[in-house]
């Protein structure tokens, strides 16, 4: 690990000023410390933000407000979260291990870095780690990589389960930075790799995620997260789908569908949502939605299986949600 200086932030202003001057925030540290030990990350200064009062979980009206420093396990075990947004709880409990869920913060979960093995291996080409060096995954071992949102520069998937659920639910990120406060959809936190895969997020230097807000909706309680992976637990998704339906009088009024493990960012499936709206909640509708989900996929040499797996996982998730009607 490269040397760094360490500062414990006593206020948000202190944290933001330190990060604006080049420091890196550390909360749970489960991604950052690991990557620092691998020398993939080499911050010169760490700013520990764990003492900041950003850990509250509460309902503001119908909106679930999650402090950015709340731990995954705290949100998963919170009665308001379970009551208002069971999809969030399900996605959280499908991710990581109990130990890591006790450590990892919600803000850090959203900003976690990719799990592409070439990104983590200093002797491999990786445009994300060393811009312009090439991508070893495109012609390499790429069974776990993305089929949507890729470029000829990067094909790594975003690893968060939580982000998939938040994108499906239209959740918002609240930030505070040198230029004041902002609020924007979680979906807009992520950039596509394009020609600049080293730029992953839209947060500005020094900007601190303070909270995530999950609005209520008629679909919130009829929602499931289905995660397909190589092991039954403690493994990243090969394909995952968050699905939510608002069904009234035997007709789907609106739907939310998002997928993980397939995109270079958490992938909202707007075509599937459009295909479901106005339909009866049955097998025909699920199949139409699944066909739309795989539009535009670009499989690599080792991950063609993900196309059919995505199609089937969309159907399975919608069946599970539909069964509850």
């Amino acid at each position, binding site marked *: *690990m490269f*040397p*760094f*200086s*360490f500062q*414990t932030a006593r206020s948000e202003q202190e944290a933001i000023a330190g990060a604006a001057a080049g420091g890196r925030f*550390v909360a*749970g*540290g*489960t991604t950052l*410390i*690991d990557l620092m*030990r*691998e020398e993939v990350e080499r911050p010169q200064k*760490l700013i*520990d933000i*764990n003492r900041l009062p950003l850990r509250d979980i509460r309902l503001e009206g119908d909106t679930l407000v999650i402090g950015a420093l709340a731990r995954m*396990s705290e949100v998963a075990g919170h009665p308001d979260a379970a009551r208002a947004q069971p999809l969030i709880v399900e996605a959280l409990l499908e991710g*990581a*291990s*109990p*130990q*890591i869920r*006790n*450590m990892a913060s919600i803000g850090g979960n959203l900003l976690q870095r990719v799990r592409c093995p070439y990104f983590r291996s200093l002797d491999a080409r990786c445009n994300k780690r060393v811009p312009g060096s090439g991508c070893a995954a495109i012609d390499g071992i790429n069974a776990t990589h993305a089929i949507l949102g890729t470029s000829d520069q990067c094909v790594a998937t975003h690893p968060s389960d939580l982000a998939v659920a938040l994108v499906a639910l239209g959740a918002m990120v609240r930030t505070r930075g040198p230029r004041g406060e902002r609020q924007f959809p979680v979906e807009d936190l992520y950039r596509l790799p394009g020609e600049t895969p080293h730029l992953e997020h839209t947060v500005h230097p020094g900007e601190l995620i303070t909270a995530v807000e999950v609005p209520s909706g008629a679909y919130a309680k009829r929602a499931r997260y289905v995660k397909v992976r190589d*092991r*039954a*637990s*403690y493994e990243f998704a090969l394909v995952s789908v968050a699905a939510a339906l608002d069904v009234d009088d035997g007709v789907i009024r609106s739907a939310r569908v998002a997928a993980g493990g397939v995109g270079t960012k958490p992938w909202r499936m707007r075509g599937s949502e459009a295909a479901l709206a106005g339909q009866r909640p049955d097998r025909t509708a699920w199949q139409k939605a699944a066909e739309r989900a795989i539009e535009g996929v670009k499989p690599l040499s080792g991950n063609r299986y993900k196309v059919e797996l995505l199609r089937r996982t969309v159907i399975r998730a919608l069946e599970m949600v539909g069964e509850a009607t």
Partner: protein
Amino acid sequence: MTTSKVELIVNGHPQRLELDPRTSLLDALREHLGLTGTKKGCNQGACGACTVLVDGRRINSCLTLAVMHDGAKVTTIEGLAAGDTLHPVQAAFIENDAFQCGYCTPGQILSGVACIAERHAGSPDEIRNWMSGNICRCGAYPGIVAAIAAAAKES
């Protein structure tokens, strides 16, 4: 190199340390406090051998810096027994033959203690799920699950 001061309350004893900020909580315990019961397996959060309790919660001590835990209460395997009386989970591990080489065992036991305290030890399936952050390469899982189930029943 600048060092940072940190106080940890380890198994009930306050410990003042002056550390390179790069020092993981795991290395602080093993290399600076001589508490080698906590094991270093993968050193990247995948195996759970380094599991300790911090303020009562199980975490991977390899994935965190000691300086991030100033004032925290840390429980390691050395702090579980009361004198010569083993903690019920320790006793259950012996009773149920829950280890072979023993390297993962301290982490398994701390994780098991937390698993029971969290009330996630209601069935073998639930135990397997909530113990999935602890790998045993000898494959002693049947004994581990049985030990935690037995200790959970007693608690």
